[in-house]
């Protein structure tokens, strides 16, 4: 997921959970059934999982812009340091792992 998608997924998760809690409470209270409240909330939680967890295409609309791989041609700092150490001390030095 890209950044916008993650933000959207989190918002949808919160709205769906709070909304299903509210719906569950109202339904349960007006039918005088605690069990109904819990079932509706459970259904809402399952729905939230289906909406927010999988990597749906709507969460991938704002693609990441990766940098150009220009740094791959230069050796790393560690390699440079090792070459300098080998140049100063001659061939006796061992590469440190």
């Amino acid at each position, binding site marked *: *997921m890209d950044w916008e998608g993650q933000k959207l*997924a*989190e918002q949808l998760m919160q709205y769906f*959970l709070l909304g299903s*809690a509210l719906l569950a409470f109202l339904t349960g*209270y007006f039918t005088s059934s605690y069990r109904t409240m819990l079932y509706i909330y459970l259904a809402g939680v399952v729905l939230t999982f289906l909406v927010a967890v*999988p990597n749906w295409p709507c969460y991938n609309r704002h693609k990441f812009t990766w940098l150009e791989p220009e740094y791959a041609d230069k050796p790393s700092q560690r390699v440079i340091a090792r070459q300098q150490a080998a140049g100063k001390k001659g061939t006796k030095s061992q590469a440190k792992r």
Partner: protein
Amino acid sequence: MYSWILRVNTVLTLSVTVLAALCAVASMTDGLHRPSPAVELKVLNVGPLERLRNGDDRIALTLSIKADLESVFTWNTKQLFVFVAAEYWSPEEGFNQISLWDTIIEKKENAKIDQQIKSKMLRKATRVGYFTYPFQGKDLRGRDFNLTMYWNVMPISGAFFTDKAVVPGFQLPISYN
């Protein structure tokens, strides 16, 4: 939220927290509920007052217990524990309570009680070593007592509480046999 595992974790945590809040709100709705129970307790027959050899007093009672506790049930009630007790005050000990009958009601449909039961009030003497306290055990003679029906309400979510209906004005025989 960058991986599905993380999203599962977040949804799960939030859903459990919201569930806790939901149950708390559900239990708070009990505060709006006003029950109107109807209770009728009568003593139909009083048996002879027996004096047992170990110092206890005992008497058999036949009670008529009628109650309509349907209005005590809310959507958040799991069960009621109902018991009928004979209560009296004595100067030596203060408040005394003897349980005569009890039942558990789990559904609102079963909340009407209409029973005639035979029960015994047993007033046990307290023994310390070989001696009994002289005023205990022998103090049922001529007692004025109340019959009180208590119901303990156990909610599905929330705090347990108890309520009662008092019917005063009963008396035990003045002498043994």
